Structure formats: C-alpha cells, structure tokens
C-alpha cells in the first residue's frame, strides 16, 4: 500500500528546495516543462549490492548519492536478515548479501499493520537468517547509512537471489562501459573499444569522445550525429521523444556534451547541434 509518504522523503526534494530558496536556479529544473518539481524523472529504481550502497559517492550531506556516476534515490537488493529489532517507531533489520551488511528501517504504521495481521497470517514471514527483498531509499544519518524501506518481503523463490546479483552486475557494467554491443557498427566499436582498453573511449563518426562522458551523454551525442537535421540542431523535447528518454536526462546529457565542447546551443537554451570542426 502506498500512502504517498515516499514522496516526502525524496532527497532530491531537499536539495532542490534549497536551490529555490537561494533564488539561484541552474536552468535545468526550472525550464524543463515536463520535469515536474521534485525531479521524479530520475526517481528510478536501481538494483544494487550492499557494498555498492556503502561505497556510494556522497560528497556532502545535502548531496545526492551516486553509484557509478549516476544518481540513485530508489534502490532494491536481496539479502539475508541477520537481526531483527523492533522499536517503538520502526523495525530495524540487519541485512547481509555476502558483499556487506546494512541496516534497513521500516516505519511502523499502526493502521496498515493491522491490515497485514489479518491478511498475511498464512504467508512466509520475515525471520532471522531468512532471505528478503528490499525496496527503499538510501539515507545517511550522521556518518551512518541505512535504507528506509518502502517494502521488505521474504523471498519464496531462491532463484531470485542469484537473479538479483546478476541484474545488479548488469546495471553496474552498463554505467561503467555503456550499453551492451548491438548489431549496429558504431555500438560494436564502442563496446570493443571499451573492453580492449579498459576504458570508455568511444569513436563516433571519426571523433574520439572523452572518457569521462556518461553513457547517456554518449547516446545523445550519437543520436544527434546520426539524425538528419538543419544547422539549428534539435530541441530537447524532440530528442527526448525520439530517444525515449526523460527530458531531465537529456538536459543532463546535453550539459555534459556542451561542457566537453562536443555540441553547442543554437536558437535557444534547449536546442543543440553537433559542433563540427
């Protein structure tokens, strides 16, 4: 059951709220017509290992967590419960997935608890040493990290454990090396290059892309290069709809590309063309 509480806990909320109050907003959020207020576009669930959670980059308390350079708010993982302690306001589980251990807290909602009592009596329960799947949000309190769980449920098909670890690896490799090779020539070259050199240098249309570009920026660059266009370039909405990306993601990718000198804005701040020289 979702009571909409999750939204209030958004880390993005805090960060952007502060920016609004300061009266200085970096174009991205404000000018994005479809972006919404809280940046929900980037509120996607990422499968991770606990080691990744504990090593997530968090430069200062108001900053967003980043894993492999990509912002994470919602995450999911599978692990074994080592300890359950019930407190007045929450239940704290110590969860171990073989890569590390983290605390998972779930707030006790007295009303919904009663519902669960009635309906869940026959189902498997969360027990110590049992495996569970967690969906939640990463929080930091002082220097300690924990996960605020939206849902935590016991595992009934143990294949899910191995499946999750493979999924987390696949996502890690995606953010590290970019999308997997496909039949298209350039993609193939991209992946081979990445693997052979152990880096993500990419050759698109005869030009070497900087290694520190995010996979998404590379995809946007490739798209801009390969799609027919006038010298006015393409508007953010058009790129987003043609690539099936969120508008906010396109803004971020475009910002990276402009900073790297690969593209430039044309008729307005939301339209970019490839810089050829």
């Amino acid at each position: 059951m979702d009571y909409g509480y999750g939204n209030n806990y958004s880390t993005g909320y805090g960060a952007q709220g502060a920016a609004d109050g300061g009266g200085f907003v970096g174009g991205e959020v404000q000018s994005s017509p479809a972006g919404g207020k809280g940046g929900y576009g980037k509120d996607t669930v990422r499968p991770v290992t606990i080691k990744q959670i504990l090593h997530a980059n968090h430069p200062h308390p108001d900053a967003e967590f980043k894993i492999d350079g990509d912002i994470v708010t919602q995450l999911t993982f599978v692990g074994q419960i080592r300890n359950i302690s019930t407190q007045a306001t929450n239940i704290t589980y110590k969860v171990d997935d073989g890569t590390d251990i983290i605390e998972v807290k779930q707030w006790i909602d007295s009303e919904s608890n009663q519902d669960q009592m009635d309906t869940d009596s026959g189902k498997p329960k969360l027990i110590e040493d049992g495996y569970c799947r967690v969906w939640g949000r990463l929080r930091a309190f002082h220097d300690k990290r924990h996960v605020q769980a939206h849902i935590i449920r016991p595992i009934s098909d143990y294949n899910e454990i191995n499946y999750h670890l493979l999924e987390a690896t696949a996502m890690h490799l995606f953010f590290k090396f970019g999308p997997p090779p496909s039949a298209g020539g350039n993609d193939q070259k991209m992946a081979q290059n990445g693997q052979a050199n152990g880096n993500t240098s990419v050759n698109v249309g005869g030009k070497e892309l900087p290694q520190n570009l995010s996979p998404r920026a590379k995809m946007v660059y490739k798209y801009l290069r390969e799609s027919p266009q006038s010298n006015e370039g393409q508007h953010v909405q058009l790129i987003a709809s043609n690539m099936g990306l969120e508008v906010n993601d396109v803004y971020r990718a475009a910002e990276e590309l402009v900073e790297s000198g690969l593209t430039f804005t044309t008729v307005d701040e939301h339209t970019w063309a490839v810089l050829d020289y």
Partner: protein
Amino acid sequence: MSLSTPRILPKHLEQFGPNAHAPVNTVRLLGTITSIHGSSATLTSGDGDTVTLVLNRDSHLSPQSLYEIVGKVINLEGGAGLGVRVMATTEWPKNPEGKPVDLKVYEAVVDATHRSKEIFYVDEEK
C-alpha cells in the same frame, strides 16, 4: 573492515585458502550435501566438484538437500588439502512450483562476482 563473503565454487578454494594472499578467506558456496560422516560432510556443486565441510555443533544438514554455506577456507587435518570450516548454513528450498534452484545461474553469479569484484568483495582500484 570488509564484511564480504564472496561466492565461489569448489575450484576457487585455492585462491581463498590460508596460503593465498586473498583479501578475504570467508566464502560462500552453494551446493548439494552428498554425504555426512560425523563432523564432516561433502558438498557437491552444480559442476560436479566437491568440497569437504568441517561442521560445527549447530549445523544440522540433511543429505541430498541444497545448502548455502558460509565458512572459512582452511587446511584440513592430516594434509588432506583444503576444506571449509562451516560458520553458517541456510537451506535453499525448492520454489513454490516445486522446482529446485538453478545451479547454472549460481555459476553465472560466481563468474560475475570475480569479473566485477569491485561491487562484490574488493575495494575499487582507484
């Protein structure tokens, strides 16, 4: 301090043994218990390799069932090679449809664990 217990197959024991300079020597194994003799048992992995388990008093294993073992890689007494001293066991039951867990998928997980160590058990090389 690292609390990781990397998933391995019997053929990887050497790399996590007391003589190897492994980052950790507490490991996880998934396999079927094929025999039990007093305080030791044999675990057979999906690829047919076996490993000798040194049991503790709390381990209650039932033969022919699938278990995940957390334990420390040790030299067996009497120079019998490497084995695992059991710290914890978890039975992996069949799924709700009555099918056993797919051990091929576990082998893929072991492969991924060692190829992408940085998200499983060693600190990222900077």
